[in-house]
């Protein structure tokens, strides 16, 4: 099975692969471009930048998102920043160093050539965004400002206050709207893709539901691009937006696109904890807080005193104790896992005993409140807005939350999925981050895919399609797909059970978080698979969705998303079970060192798993893309 997957890495040394590719990629003449149509699903950084760039080139683009405006895609929520190897700080940064940091951060589980290209195109992105009017932070001299971010020793992160994602997204949204103005982009907001249509094995269109009218529509094109973001919402409680979903990629998966490393999920250590059973969302608090905040739990698990009443010697600063060299700045996966250990040992704090303290009292004593306010004032305000608590007076309560999907649709170097004519970009694909994503690299990846990579690789594909007529949406394959979608909707509406989709999502999410979250074990995963199968059965018979198909119906929207989660969740567990090693965010309790660190197995598991749908969620076929390291020798990550 191993050679089903062709990664299509170009010839030549690492640093020349992308330019070699661009030199030889096929072109489409401007005259022919206007005869070709492309569907781009998603208007986050990946989708908006791709749609705008393709339209500028002269293609006809149809752009879809489920929000009421493309500007609201969840890229908008990214706070920290975006990386680029500009070396403005003269601190020894380079494309190679950025590539290496990313590869190492991902625990040597990504494809060298893709990761290199990400670093190589990073500088261009800063130029592009600046030209669009993105107000990045500036030094007093007027030049762009940088800061450092987790896991690296240089300052390569560009930022726009704590709203980098918002500002980058507005840049690409405006570029997109400019093309709407020229007529090259047709915009379909409040539309949800519910199926992919294949004609003679090629992706030729989608079925989408107009969320305002309930109408199920057909859209045809010469190629389809999925830029639909991450699926962390499968855990229900996460840093994602309420509507984030796996439906587009999952339905493409069921039509033949392979899913790669689906179980690799980044769980972010510094989020606001769940405070009650009705909570819907775990807000991310910037990682930068760990620069001055100290993380601790009471030594005694029955301690009911208020934080400030617990004396110093009765506190366990467990990160400082376990990782003296990195202390509170240990990488995300390690910080999250350690918090879980404490919580599982009954030492969690707060009403639900599900959090740990992040304490600024030492820093306030040392530097004064004003300095701390200057550094983190906006975050302390946000914390107060949500919790009502003043973190200058008592420690914050934080806990880990699902945050980023390293897994996604398998794509080759050209970002093609295993279905001809179907491409996947941004967080929706699996490509560049390996088993753990470094902070500030995913805004970058979404942008690089959309602005700089896809326009070349899609054109290389379209060059062979210029003779193809406009796709006929009356083709029997469209009938079939539309009927299937309608039948599924009808099924949801007529089940008339007792539990809402959200209730099912919560049950699934806590099962997954518990057994396929921060740490995984054979026993737990096998149990989870069984439980998920039972839950899926219950979902089929006990779901309740009110109302009709032909109207605004948010419960119906949720039902479709949760139905897909019910299947994807099992694949995540199967994937985690199959990988008998620990790497990055994937921590199998059976595979750890004597010091409880992840134990990678390069002899047996140096591959990306790419799962093929086999008519049944319990029966996927494993394909392996062997990872070949030509330039770098994988080493052991150590943070002691």
């Amino acid at each position: 099975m191993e050679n089903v997957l062709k990664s299509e890495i170009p010839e030549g040394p690492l640093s020349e692969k992308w330019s070699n590719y661009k030199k030889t990629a096929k072109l489409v003449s401007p005259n022919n471009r206007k005869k070709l149509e492309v569907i781009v699903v998603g208007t986050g950084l990946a989708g908006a930048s791709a749609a705008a760039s393709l339209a500028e080139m002269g293609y006809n683009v149809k752009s879809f998102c489920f929000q009421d405006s493309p500007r609201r895609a969840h890229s908008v929520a990214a706070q920290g920043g975006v990386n680029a190897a500009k070396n403005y700080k003269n601190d020894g940064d380079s494309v190679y160093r950025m590539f290496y940091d990313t590869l190492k951060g991902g625990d040597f589980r990504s494809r060298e050539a893709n990761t290199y290209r990400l670093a190589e195109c990073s500088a261009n992105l800063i130029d592009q965004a600046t030209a669009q009017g993105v107000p990045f932070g500036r030094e007093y001299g007027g030049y762009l400002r940088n800061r450092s971010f987790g896991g690296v020793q240089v300052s390569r992160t560009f930022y726009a206050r704590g709203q980098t994602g918002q500002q980058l997204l507005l840049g690409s949204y405006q570029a997109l709207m400019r093309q709407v103005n020229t007529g090259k982009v047709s915009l379909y907001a409040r539309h949800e893709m519910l199926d992919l249509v294949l004609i003679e094995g090629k992706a030729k269109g989608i079925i989408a539901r107009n969320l305002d009218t309930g109408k199920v529509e057909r859209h045809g094109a010469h190629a389809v691009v999925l830029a639909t973001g991450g699926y962390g919402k499968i855990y229900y409680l996460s840093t994602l937006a309420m509507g984030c979903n796996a439906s587009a990629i999952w339905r493409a998966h069921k039509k033949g696109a392979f899913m790669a490393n689906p179980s690799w999920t980044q769980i972010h250590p510094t989020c606001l904890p769940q405070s009650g059973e009705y909570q819907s969302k775990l807000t991310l608090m910037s990682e930068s807080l760990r620069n001055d905040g100290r993380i601790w739990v009471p030594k005694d698990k029955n301690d009911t005193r208020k934080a400030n009443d617990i004396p110093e010697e009765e506190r366990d600063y467990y990160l400082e104790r376990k990782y003296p060299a990195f202390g509170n700045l240990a990488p995300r996966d390690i910080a999250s896992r350690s918090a879980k250990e404490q919580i599982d040992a009954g030492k969690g704090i707060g009403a639900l005993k599900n959090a740990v303290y992040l304490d600024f009292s030492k820093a306030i004593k040392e530097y004064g409140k004003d300095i701390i306010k200057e550094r983190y004032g906006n975050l302390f305000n946000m914390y107060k807005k949500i919790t009502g608590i003043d973190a200058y007076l008592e420690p914050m309560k934080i806990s880990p939350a699902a945050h980023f999907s390293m897994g996604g649709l398998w794509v080759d170097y050209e970002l093609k999925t295993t279905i001809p004519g179907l491409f996947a970009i941004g967080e929706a694909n699996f490509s560049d981050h390996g088993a753990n994503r470094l902070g500030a690299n995913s805004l970058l990846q979404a942008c690089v895919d959309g602005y700089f990579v896809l326009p070349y690789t899609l054109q290389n594909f379209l060059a062979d399609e210029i003779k193809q007529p406009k796709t006929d949406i009356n083709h029997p394959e469209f009938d079939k797909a539309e009927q299937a979608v309608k039948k599924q909707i009808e099924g949801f509406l007529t089940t008339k059970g007792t539990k809402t989709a959200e209730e099912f999502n919560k049950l699934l999410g806590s099962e997954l978080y518990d057994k396929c979250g921060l740490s995984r074990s054979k026993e737990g995963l096998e149990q989870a698979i069984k439980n998920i199968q039972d839950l899926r059965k219950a979902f089929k018979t006990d779901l309740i969705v009110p109302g009709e198909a032909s109207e605004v119906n948010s419960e119906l929207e949720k039902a479709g998303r949760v139905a897909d989660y019910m299947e994807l969740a099992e694949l995540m567990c199967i994937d985690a079970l199959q990988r008998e090693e620990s790497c990055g965010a994937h921590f199998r309790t059976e595979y750890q060192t004597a010091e409880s660190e992840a134990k990678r197995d390069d002899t047996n598991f140096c591959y990306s798993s790419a799962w093929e749908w086999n008519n049944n969620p319990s029966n996927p076929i494993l394909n392996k893309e062997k990872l070949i390291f030509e330039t770098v020798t994988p080493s052991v990550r150590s943070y002691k």
Partner: protein
Amino acid sequence: MKIHLKIWRQKDSQSKGEFKDYTLDDVHQELSFLEMLDTLNLKLVKKGEYPVEFDHDCREGICGQCGMMINGIAHGPLKNTTTCQLHMRSFKDGDTIYIEPFKAAAFPVVRDLKVNRSSLDHIITSGGYVSVDTGQAPEANSIPIAHEEAEAAFDAAACIGCGACVASCKNASAALFTSAKITQLELLPQGQTETSKRVISMVKQMEEEGFGHCTNTEACQVECPEDISVLNIARMNYEYNKAKILNK
């Protein structure tokens, strides 16, 4: 605590709407406003009734998708806060809360509290951008921008496009929203070349969408979750007049 709700229910843009009464007996202080509505909806769905439709997505105050009139105030009583960031601790046991959609001619009701704000997108489409194609950008540091200018541009760029300014305005004007984009791009050298063309087409579009005229009541800034300044409107008017004169 016990909360009484009077919520605007309207099946679609054609139907007539009305307030319906609901009571929730056990509302926790730490619930967000939208989570409070979630609990109401859960109850309604379980009873086989149709839940209250409202818009929301990020639930962290940045996407701009949420928004409703809460006791007559866009996004509710807490200053500089979106509906999703409002929490029930801002209310008292026994309170009655009126909840309505953002109302404006340019925001037709879709259902219940959901409105269609595409008119704001249309304003951006008409000129709210810098005309630069992918690949044309010069080296970023080739155009230094003073720290203060970049920060001022950011202040205007922080608009989340929620439409609260329109809803809070007695004229249903989109002047605050439109002027914020004009100001951001005008403050940056990258955007300056197109200012006069931009301001003319965006103002024209604003009128075509059916937004009212600004009469400087300044209600918009008060209810804007991002505290976007009304000085942007003055700047827009100045640029507009300048462009009109120069184009004569």
